[in-house]
Protein backbone atom coordinates (compact mmCIF):
# COMPACT_ATOMS: atom_id res chain seq x y z
CA UNK A 1 0.00 0.00 0.00
CA UNK A 2 1.51 3.36 -0.98
CA UNK A 3 2.04 6.06 1.63
CA UNK A 4 2.22 9.80 1.12
CA UNK A 5 5.81 10.39 2.22
CA UNK A 6 5.54 14.17 2.29
CA UNK A 7 2.78 13.95 4.89
CA UNK A 8 5.25 12.60 7.43
CA UNK A 9 6.56 15.06 10.01
CA UNK A 10 9.80 16.63 8.74
CA UNK A 11 12.02 14.98 11.35
CA UNK A 12 10.62 11.52 10.63
CA UNK A 13 11.02 11.98 6.90
CA UNK A 14 14.60 13.06 7.50
CA UNK A 15 15.25 10.02 9.64
CA UNK A 16 13.76 7.73 6.97
CA UNK A 17 16.14 9.31 4.43
CA UNK A 18 19.05 8.75 6.78
CA UNK A 19 18.15 5.05 6.90
CA UNK A 20 18.36 4.71 3.11
CA UNK A 21 21.49 3.58 1.34
CA UNK A 22 23.15 5.90 -1.18
CA UNK A 23 21.75 4.02 -4.16
CA UNK A 24 18.15 4.32 -2.96
CA UNK A 25 18.76 7.92 -1.98
CA UNK A 26 19.92 8.72 -5.50
CA UNK A 27 16.86 7.01 -6.97
CA UNK A 28 14.73 9.11 -4.60
CA UNK A 29 16.55 12.32 -5.58
CA UNK A 30 15.62 11.67 -9.21
CA UNK A 31 11.87 11.66 -8.52
CA UNK A 32 11.42 15.45 -8.55
CA UNK A 33 13.06 18.79 -7.75
CA UNK A 34 11.56 18.58 -4.29
CA UNK A 35 13.05 15.15 -3.57
CA UNK A 36 16.41 16.30 -4.87
CA UNK A 37 16.37 19.29 -2.53
CA UNK A 38 15.42 17.03 0.35
CA UNK A 39 18.39 14.75 -0.27
CA UNK A 40 20.62 17.79 -0.69
CA UNK A 41 19.51 19.25 2.63
CA UNK A 42 19.98 15.91 4.37
CA UNK A 43 23.72 16.57 4.00
CA UNK A 44 24.58 12.94 3.47
CA UNK A 45 28.36 12.67 3.49
CA UNK A 46 30.14 10.79 0.76
CA UNK A 47 33.82 10.08 0.78
CA UNK A 48 36.38 10.35 -2.04
CA UNK A 49 34.05 10.61 -5.04
CA UNK A 50 35.98 9.02 -7.88
CA UNK A 51 35.43 9.05 -11.64
CA UNK A 52 36.92 6.56 -14.06
CA UNK A 53 36.70 7.61 -17.70
CA UNK A 54 36.42 4.92 -20.36
CA UNK A 55 35.96 5.39 -24.08
CA UNK A 56 32.18 5.62 -24.02
CA UNK A 57 31.22 5.79 -20.39
CA UNK A 58 32.03 7.42 -17.11
CA UNK A 59 32.13 5.30 -13.99
CA UNK A 60 31.33 7.00 -10.72
CA UNK A 61 32.39 5.50 -7.39
CA UNK A 62 30.98 6.78 -4.14
CA UNK A 63 32.23 5.63 -0.80
CA UNK A 64 30.19 6.09 2.32
CA UNK A 65 31.63 5.98 5.80
CA UNK A 66 29.94 5.26 9.10
CA UNK A 67 31.06 6.07 12.58
CA UNK A 68 31.13 2.93 14.68
CA UNK A 69 30.21 2.81 18.34
CA UNK A 70 33.84 2.43 19.30
CA UNK A 71 34.35 5.82 17.63
CA UNK A 72 36.64 4.71 14.86
CA UNK A 73 35.66 5.27 11.29
CA UNK A 74 35.29 2.41 8.86
CA UNK A 75 34.36 2.33 5.21
CA UNK A 76 30.77 1.27 4.97
CA UNK A 77 30.04 0.66 1.31
CA UNK A 78 31.17 1.50 -2.17
CA UNK A 79 28.54 2.31 -4.78
CA UNK A 80 29.25 2.20 -8.47
CA UNK A 81 27.35 3.92 -11.28
CA UNK A 82 27.99 3.92 -15.01
CA UNK A 83 26.93 6.97 -16.96
CA UNK A 84 26.50 6.54 -20.68
CA UNK A 85 25.57 9.16 -23.21
CA UNK A 86 22.01 8.18 -22.58
CA UNK A 87 20.97 6.72 -19.23
CA UNK A 88 22.83 5.36 -16.25
CA UNK A 89 23.42 1.96 -14.74
CA UNK A 90 23.73 1.19 -11.11
CA UNK A 91 25.78 -1.80 -10.11
CA UNK A 92 24.64 -1.69 -6.50
CA UNK A 93 21.32 -3.37 -7.25
CA UNK A 94 20.49 -6.88 -8.23
CA UNK A 95 20.95 -6.57 -11.93
CA UNK A 96 21.32 -3.36 -13.83
CA UNK A 97 18.63 -0.75 -13.94
CA UNK A 98 18.66 2.12 -16.39
CA UNK A 99 17.30 5.36 -15.00
CA UNK A 100 16.52 8.70 -16.56
CA UNK A 101 17.14 7.97 -20.21
CA UNK A 102 16.93 11.65 -21.04
CA UNK A 103 19.97 12.53 -18.86
CA UNK A 104 23.31 13.10 -20.60
CA UNK A 105 26.63 12.31 -18.89
CA UNK A 106 26.92 15.96 -18.01
CA UNK A 107 23.45 15.93 -16.41
CA UNK A 108 24.36 12.86 -14.32
CA UNK A 109 27.59 14.29 -13.07
CA UNK A 110 25.99 17.64 -12.27
CA UNK A 111 23.16 15.84 -10.44
CA UNK A 112 25.53 13.76 -8.30
CA UNK A 113 27.84 16.61 -7.42
CA UNK A 114 25.02 18.96 -6.54
CA UNK A 115 22.97 16.35 -4.62
CA UNK A 116 25.91 15.49 -2.37
CA UNK A 117 27.13 19.10 -2.13
CA UNK A 118 30.54 18.41 -3.63
CA UNK A 119 32.22 21.08 -5.70
CA UNK A 120 34.96 18.75 -6.93
CA UNK A 121 35.70 15.07 -7.23
CA UNK A 122 38.65 13.50 -5.48
CA UNK A 123 40.10 11.30 -8.23
CA UNK A 124 39.76 11.38 -11.99
CA UNK A 125 41.03 8.20 -13.59
CA UNK A 126 41.61 7.97 -17.35
CA UNK A 127 41.33 4.26 -17.96
CA UNK A 128 41.98 3.85 -21.69
CA UNK A 129 42.75 5.80 -24.84
CA UNK A 130 39.94 8.15 -25.81
CA UNK A 131 39.60 10.90 -28.38
CA UNK A 132 41.14 14.28 -27.63
CA UNK A 133 37.74 15.94 -28.01
CA UNK A 134 36.34 13.64 -25.30
CA UNK A 135 39.23 14.65 -23.03
CA UNK A 136 38.22 18.27 -23.58
CA UNK A 137 34.65 17.39 -22.64
CA UNK A 138 35.89 15.65 -19.50
CA UNK A 139 37.93 18.74 -18.65
CA UNK A 140 34.75 20.77 -18.91
CA UNK A 141 32.86 18.32 -16.66
CA UNK A 142 35.58 18.42 -14.01
CA UNK A 143 37.27 21.80 -13.93
CA UNK A 144 39.17 20.80 -10.78
CA UNK A 145 39.99 17.59 -8.90
CA UNK A 146 42.49 16.36 -6.37
CA UNK A 147 44.16 13.44 -8.10
CA UNK A 148 44.64 12.55 -11.76
CA UNK A 149 45.22 8.86 -12.34
CA UNK A 150 46.27 7.65 -15.79
CA UNK A 151 46.05 3.91 -16.27
CA UNK A 152 48.98 1.91 -17.58
CA UNK A 153 46.66 0.44 -20.20
CA UNK A 154 46.77 3.77 -22.04
CA UNK A 155 49.46 4.20 -24.66
CA UNK A 156 52.63 6.12 -23.79
CA UNK A 157 51.75 8.91 -26.17
CA UNK A 158 48.23 9.17 -24.81
CA UNK A 159 49.48 9.32 -21.20
CA UNK A 160 51.68 12.26 -22.21
CA UNK A 161 48.78 14.03 -23.90
CA UNK A 162 46.52 13.52 -20.87
CA UNK A 163 49.25 14.58 -18.48
CA UNK A 164 50.02 17.88 -20.23
CA UNK A 165 46.33 18.60 -20.75
CA UNK A 166 45.13 17.95 -17.22
CA UNK A 167 48.02 18.18 -14.76
CA UNK A 168 47.43 21.87 -14.09
CA UNK A 169 44.00 21.22 -12.61
CA UNK A 170 45.07 18.33 -10.37
CA UNK A 171 46.88 18.49 -7.06
CA UNK A 172 48.37 15.07 -7.56
CA UNK A 173 49.16 13.00 -10.68
CA UNK A 174 49.74 9.26 -10.86
CA UNK A 175 50.57 6.98 -13.79
CA UNK A 176 52.20 3.61 -13.60
CA UNK A 177 54.36 3.67 -16.74
CA UNK A 178 57.63 5.11 -17.87
CA UNK A 179 56.57 7.60 -20.51
CA UNK A 180 59.93 9.16 -21.35
CA UNK A 181 61.47 8.84 -24.81
CA UNK A 182 65.06 9.47 -23.63
CA UNK A 183 67.19 10.94 -20.82
CA UNK A 184 66.54 14.45 -22.04
CA UNK A 185 62.78 13.91 -21.95
CA UNK A 186 63.05 12.51 -18.40
CA UNK A 187 65.15 15.47 -17.14
CA UNK A 188 62.72 17.92 -18.66
CA UNK A 189 59.90 16.27 -16.72
CA UNK A 190 61.70 15.92 -13.38
CA UNK A 191 62.77 19.57 -13.35
CA UNK A 192 59.19 20.87 -13.70
CA UNK A 193 57.68 22.29 -10.52
CA UNK A 194 54.81 19.81 -10.17
CA UNK A 195 53.16 19.38 -6.77
CA UNK A 196 52.84 15.63 -6.46
CA UNK A 197 53.66 12.97 -9.05
CA UNK A 198 53.73 9.18 -8.83
CA UNK A 199 55.02 7.11 -11.70
CA UNK A 200 57.37 4.32 -12.68
CA UNK A 201 59.35 2.29 -13.40
CA UNK A 202 62.38 4.50 -14.02
CA UNK A 203 66.17 4.48 -13.94
CA UNK A 204 67.30 7.33 -11.69
CA UNK A 205 70.71 8.92 -11.30
CA UNK A 206 72.22 11.19 -8.69
CA UNK A 207 71.89 14.08 -11.13
CA UNK A 208 68.16 13.39 -11.46
CA UNK A 209 67.75 13.64 -7.68
CA UNK A 210 69.81 16.81 -7.45
CA UNK A 211 67.98 18.64 -10.22
CA UNK A 212 64.55 17.36 -9.15
CA UNK A 213 61.94 20.09 -8.74
CA UNK A 214 58.79 18.06 -7.94
CA UNK A 215 57.63 18.74 -4.38
CA UNK A 216 56.39 15.21 -3.71
CA UNK A 217 57.68 12.38 -5.89
CA UNK A 218 57.00 8.63 -5.75
CA UNK A 219 58.57 6.16 -8.18
CA UNK A 220 57.45 2.55 -8.44
CA UNK A 221 59.94 1.01 -9.26
CA UNK A 222 63.11 3.08 -9.20
CA UNK A 223 66.38 1.73 -10.47
CA UNK A 224 69.04 3.48 -8.38
CA UNK A 225 72.08 2.23 -6.46
CA UNK A 226 72.63 2.53 -2.72
CA UNK A 227 75.89 4.33 -3.49
CA UNK A 228 74.01 7.06 -5.37
CA UNK A 229 71.49 7.43 -2.54
CA UNK A 230 74.41 7.74 -0.12
CA UNK A 231 76.05 10.45 -2.26
CA UNK A 232 72.73 12.25 -2.53
CA UNK A 233 72.31 12.33 1.26
CA UNK A 234 75.89 13.52 1.74
CA UNK A 235 75.43 16.33 -0.78
CA UNK A 236 72.17 17.34 0.88
CA UNK A 237 74.00 17.49 4.25
CA UNK A 238 76.70 19.70 2.78
CA UNK A 239 74.31 21.99 0.91
CA UNK A 240 73.68 24.49 3.74
CA UNK A 241 71.40 27.36 2.83
CA UNK A 242 70.79 25.94 -0.65
CA UNK A 243 67.15 25.85 -1.65
CA UNK A 244 65.92 22.37 -2.58
CA UNK A 245 62.23 22.24 -3.49
CA UNK A 246 61.40 18.51 -3.01
CA UNK A 247 59.80 17.85 0.37
CA UNK A 248 59.26 14.14 -0.03
CA UNK A 249 60.80 11.48 -2.26
CA UNK A 250 59.60 7.89 -2.08
CA UNK A 251 61.49 5.32 -4.12
CA UNK A 252 60.56 1.67 -4.31
CA UNK A 253 62.90 -0.79 -5.90
CA UNK A 254 61.81 -4.12 -7.37
CA UNK A 255 60.43 -6.45 -4.68
CA UNK A 256 63.45 -8.70 -4.47
CA UNK A 257 65.99 -5.85 -4.27
CA UNK A 258 66.41 -4.76 -0.64
CA UNK A 259 68.01 -1.42 0.23
CA UNK A 260 70.79 -1.65 2.81
CA UNK A 261 70.63 1.00 5.57
CA UNK A 262 74.35 0.62 6.22
CA UNK A 263 75.27 1.34 2.61
CA UNK A 264 72.90 4.29 2.25
CA UNK A 265 73.97 5.91 5.53
CA UNK A 266 77.69 5.10 5.30
CA UNK A 267 79.78 8.04 6.56
CA UNK A 268 76.73 10.11 7.50
CA UNK A 269 76.03 11.35 11.03
CA UNK A 270 72.46 10.47 11.92
CA UNK A 271 70.12 9.93 14.84
CA UNK A 272 68.09 6.74 15.12
CA UNK A 273 64.39 7.56 15.67
CA UNK A 274 61.33 5.35 15.87
CA UNK A 275 57.86 6.16 14.77
CA UNK A 276 55.65 7.55 17.51
CA UNK A 277 52.85 5.15 16.71
CA UNK A 278 54.90 2.20 17.91
CA UNK A 279 55.73 0.80 14.50
CA UNK A 280 59.19 -0.62 14.49
CA UNK A 281 60.44 0.74 11.17
CA UNK A 282 63.98 2.05 10.95
CA UNK A 283 63.85 5.83 10.65
CA UNK A 284 66.85 8.11 10.80
CA UNK A 285 67.11 11.85 11.39
CA UNK A 286 69.80 13.84 9.61
CA UNK A 287 70.59 17.41 10.69
CA UNK A 288 72.30 19.96 8.52
CA UNK A 289 74.54 22.81 9.69
CA UNK A 290 71.81 25.38 8.89
CA UNK A 291 69.38 23.56 11.21
CA UNK A 292 67.33 21.88 8.45
CA UNK A 293 66.24 18.34 9.20
CA UNK A 294 65.59 15.34 7.00
CA UNK A 295 64.01 12.06 7.98
CA UNK A 296 65.04 8.96 6.12
CA UNK A 297 63.00 5.80 6.27
CA UNK A 298 64.48 2.62 4.86
CA UNK A 299 62.68 -0.71 4.90
CA UNK A 300 63.16 -3.66 2.58
CA UNK A 301 62.79 -2.21 -0.91
CA UNK A 302 61.62 1.26 0.10
CA UNK A 303 63.53 4.49 0.61
CA UNK A 304 61.65 7.56 1.85
CA UNK A 305 63.11 10.99 2.34
CA UNK A 306 61.20 13.81 4.02
CA UNK A 307 62.50 17.31 4.64
CA UNK A 308 61.52 19.50 7.59
CA UNK A 309 58.31 19.32 9.61
Amino acid at each position, binding site marked *: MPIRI*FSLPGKDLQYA*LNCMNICDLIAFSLCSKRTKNLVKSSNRKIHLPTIYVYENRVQFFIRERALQREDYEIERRIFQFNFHDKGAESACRNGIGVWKKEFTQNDWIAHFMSTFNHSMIHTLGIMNNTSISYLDTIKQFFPKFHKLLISGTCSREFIKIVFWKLYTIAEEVEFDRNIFDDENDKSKFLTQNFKSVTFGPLKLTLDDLLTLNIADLTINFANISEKELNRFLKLWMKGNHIFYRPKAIRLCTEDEIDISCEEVLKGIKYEDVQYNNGEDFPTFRLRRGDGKEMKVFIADNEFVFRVGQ
Partner: protein
Amino acid sequence: MSSTEQGTSSAAPAEPTTAPESAAAPEVPESFYYVHGKDKVVHKVSAGALQHSALIHGMISNLGYTEEQAKANPFPFENIDGDILQMVVDWCNQHKGKPTPPEDTNLPKQKEKLFDLVLAVNYLEIKELLTYCCKQVAMMVKGKSPEEIREIWMIPTDAEDEAAEKEAKKRAGKEAAGETAAAAGDAK
Protein backbone atom coordinates in the same frame (compact mmCIF):
# COMPACT_ATOMS: atom_id res chain seq x y z
CA MET B 1 -17.30 5.85 26.60
CA SER B 2 -16.87 2.11 26.39
CA SER B 3 -15.05 0.64 29.31
CA THR B 4 -13.88 -2.60 27.68
CA GLU B 5 -10.58 -3.35 29.29
CA GLN B 6 -8.11 -5.06 27.03
CA GLY B 7 -5.21 -5.12 29.41
CA THR B 8 -5.52 -8.85 29.95
CA SER B 9 -6.52 -9.96 26.44
CA SER B 10 -4.18 -12.18 24.44
CA ALA B 11 -3.27 -9.38 22.02
CA ALA B 12 -2.75 -6.90 24.79
CA PRO B 13 -0.26 -7.27 27.57
CA ALA B 14 -0.98 -9.56 30.47
CA GLU B 15 -0.82 -8.40 34.02
CA PRO B 16 2.71 -7.41 34.85
CA THR B 17 4.88 -10.34 35.72
CA THR B 18 6.93 -9.96 38.84
CA ALA B 19 10.48 -9.20 37.91
CA PRO B 20 13.16 -11.00 39.89
CA GLU B 21 14.26 -8.68 42.62
CA SER B 22 16.80 -8.94 45.34
CA ALA B 23 15.48 -10.46 48.55
CA ALA B 24 16.21 -7.31 50.54
CA ALA B 25 14.24 -4.96 48.28
CA PRO B 26 10.63 -4.39 49.38
CA GLU B 27 8.07 -5.28 46.73
CA VAL B 28 6.50 -2.16 45.24
CA PRO B 29 3.18 -2.85 43.49
CA GLU B 30 3.28 -1.66 39.91
CA SER B 31 0.89 1.11 39.01
CA PHE B 32 -1.31 0.99 35.94
CA TYR B 33 -2.77 3.63 33.70
CA TYR B 34 -5.43 3.57 31.04
CA VAL B 35 -5.44 4.91 27.49
CA HIS B 36 -7.93 4.88 24.66
CA GLY B 37 -7.89 5.79 21.00
CA LYS B 38 -10.49 6.84 18.44
CA ASP B 39 -12.47 3.60 19.01
CA LYS B 40 -12.78 4.35 22.77
CA VAL B 41 -11.50 0.88 23.68
CA VAL B 42 -9.56 1.29 26.90
CA HIS B 43 -6.14 -0.33 27.25
CA LYS B 44 -4.61 -0.99 30.63
CA VAL B 45 -0.90 -0.34 30.58
CA SER B 46 1.72 -0.44 33.32
CA ALA B 47 3.63 2.71 34.21
CA GLY B 48 6.85 0.86 33.29
CA ALA B 49 5.62 0.21 29.76
CA LEU B 50 4.37 3.77 29.39
CA GLN B 51 7.81 5.13 30.16
CA HIS B 52 8.66 4.57 26.49
CA SER B 53 6.29 7.42 25.61
CA ALA B 54 7.78 10.75 26.60
CA LEU B 55 4.34 12.36 26.17
CA ILE B 56 2.42 9.97 28.47
CA HIS B 57 5.28 9.76 30.93
CA GLY B 58 5.20 13.55 31.23
CA MET B 59 1.42 13.51 31.74
CA ILE B 60 1.66 10.85 34.47
CA SER B 61 4.40 12.72 36.30
CA ASN B 62 2.41 15.93 36.26
CA LEU B 63 -0.96 14.45 37.29
CA GLY B 64 0.10 12.19 40.19
CA TYR B 65 -3.03 9.98 39.80
CA THR B 66 -3.97 7.21 42.20
CA GLU B 67 -4.97 3.82 40.73
CA GLU B 68 -8.68 4.70 41.02
CA GLN B 69 -8.26 8.14 39.51
CA ALA B 70 -6.26 6.67 36.64
CA LYS B 71 -8.96 4.09 35.97
CA ALA B 72 -11.67 6.72 36.02
CA ASN B 73 -9.74 9.03 33.70
CA PRO B 74 -8.17 7.12 30.81
CA PHE B 75 -5.86 9.23 28.65
CA PRO B 76 -7.79 9.99 25.46
CA PHE B 77 -5.92 9.88 22.15
CA GLU B 78 -8.76 10.67 19.77
CA ASN B 79 -6.37 11.20 16.88
CA ILE B 80 -5.07 7.62 17.00
CA ASP B 81 -6.97 4.66 15.52
CA GLY B 82 -7.77 1.89 17.99
CA ASP B 83 -5.77 -0.80 16.20
CA ILE B 84 -2.75 1.51 15.93
CA LEU B 85 -2.91 2.31 19.64
CA GLN B 86 -3.14 -1.42 20.32
CA MET B 87 0.08 -1.96 18.34
CA VAL B 88 1.80 0.78 20.28
CA VAL B 89 0.61 -0.60 23.63
CA ASP B 90 1.78 -4.10 22.66
CA TRP B 91 5.17 -2.79 21.71
CA CYS B 92 5.53 -0.79 24.93
CA ASN B 93 4.67 -3.87 26.97
CA GLN B 94 7.09 -6.08 25.08
CA HIS B 95 9.88 -3.63 25.69
CA LYS B 96 9.06 -2.67 29.24
CA GLY B 97 12.18 -1.86 31.19
CA LYS B 98 14.62 -2.91 28.49
CA PRO B 99 16.36 -1.00 25.72
CA THR B 100 15.30 -1.65 22.13
CA PRO B 101 17.88 -3.44 20.02
CA PRO B 102 18.89 -1.65 16.77
CA GLU B 103 17.09 -4.30 14.68
CA ASP B 104 13.95 -5.28 16.55
CA THR B 105 12.18 -8.16 14.86
CA ASN B 106 9.37 -8.24 17.45
CA LEU B 107 7.99 -4.90 16.31
CA PRO B 108 4.80 -4.58 14.27
CA LYS B 109 5.41 -5.05 10.56
CA GLN B 110 2.02 -4.19 9.06
CA LYS B 111 3.06 -2.01 6.15
CA GLU B 112 -0.47 -0.90 5.41
CA LYS B 113 -0.60 0.65 8.87
CA LEU B 114 2.95 1.93 8.86
CA PHE B 115 2.13 5.50 7.95
CA ASP B 116 -0.52 5.84 10.70
CA LEU B 117 1.84 4.15 13.12
CA VAL B 118 4.61 6.68 12.37
CA LEU B 119 2.21 9.56 13.01
CA ALA B 120 0.94 8.02 16.27
CA VAL B 121 4.40 7.15 17.53
CA ASN B 122 5.64 10.61 16.62
CA TYR B 123 2.74 12.14 18.57
CA LEU B 124 3.30 9.89 21.58
CA GLU B 125 7.05 10.57 21.41
CA ILE B 126 8.23 6.97 21.51
CA LYS B 127 11.71 7.49 20.17
CA GLU B 128 12.87 3.88 19.73
CA LEU B 129 9.70 2.76 17.99
CA LEU B 130 9.80 5.83 15.77
CA THR B 131 13.34 4.97 14.75
CA TYR B 132 12.29 1.49 13.80
CA CYS B 133 9.19 2.69 11.92
CA CYS B 134 11.27 5.16 9.90
CA LYS B 135 13.64 2.33 9.02
CA GLN B 136 10.65 0.34 7.83
CA VAL B 137 9.51 3.29 5.72
CA ALA B 138 12.99 3.47 4.16
CA MET B 139 12.93 -0.30 3.51
CA MET B 140 9.77 0.09 1.43
CA VAL B 141 11.80 1.56 -1.43
CA LYS B 142 14.96 -0.52 -1.13
CA GLY B 143 16.24 -1.43 -4.58
CA LYS B 144 13.43 0.42 -6.37
CA SER B 145 13.73 2.70 -9.41
CA PRO B 146 12.74 6.40 -9.24
CA GLU B 147 9.44 5.58 -10.96
CA GLU B 148 8.67 2.81 -8.45
CA ILE B 149 9.61 5.07 -5.53
CA ARG B 150 7.31 7.77 -6.88
CA GLU B 151 4.45 5.27 -6.89
CA ILE B 152 5.13 3.74 -3.45
CA TRP B 153 5.63 7.06 -1.70
CA MET B 154 3.06 8.95 -3.79
CA ILE B 155 5.56 11.60 -4.83
CA PRO B 156 4.09 14.32 -7.07
CA THR B 157 5.89 15.21 -10.31
CA ASP B 158 7.46 18.66 -10.71
CA ALA B 159 4.45 19.74 -12.78
CA GLU B 160 2.05 18.57 -10.04
CA ASP B 161 4.13 20.35 -7.39
CA GLU B 162 4.05 23.56 -9.43
CA ALA B 163 0.31 23.30 -9.98
CA ALA B 164 -0.26 22.69 -6.26
CA GLU B 165 1.91 25.67 -5.39
CA LYS B 166 -0.02 27.91 -7.79
CA GLU B 167 -3.28 26.66 -6.35
CA ALA B 168 -2.10 27.30 -2.79
CA LYS B 169 -1.00 30.84 -3.71
CA LYS B 170 -4.34 31.49 -5.38
CA ARG B 171 -6.21 30.22 -2.31
CA ALA B 172 -4.05 32.29 0.03
CA GLY B 173 -4.72 35.37 -2.12
CA LYS B 174 -8.47 34.76 -2.03
CA GLU B 175 -8.43 34.23 1.74
CA ALA B 176 -6.45 37.43 2.25
CA ALA B 177 -8.89 39.33 0.04
CA GLY B 178 -11.81 37.83 2.01
CA GLU B 179 -10.28 38.88 5.32
CA THR B 180 -9.68 42.42 4.04
CA ALA B 181 -13.30 42.65 2.87
CA ALA B 182 -14.54 41.34 6.23
CA ALA B 183 -12.39 43.84 8.11
CA ALA B 184 -13.72 46.66 5.92
CA GLY B 185 -17.29 45.47 6.62
CA ASP B 186 -16.61 45.46 10.37
CA ALA B 187 -15.20 48.96 10.18
CA LYS B 188 -18.42 50.20 8.56
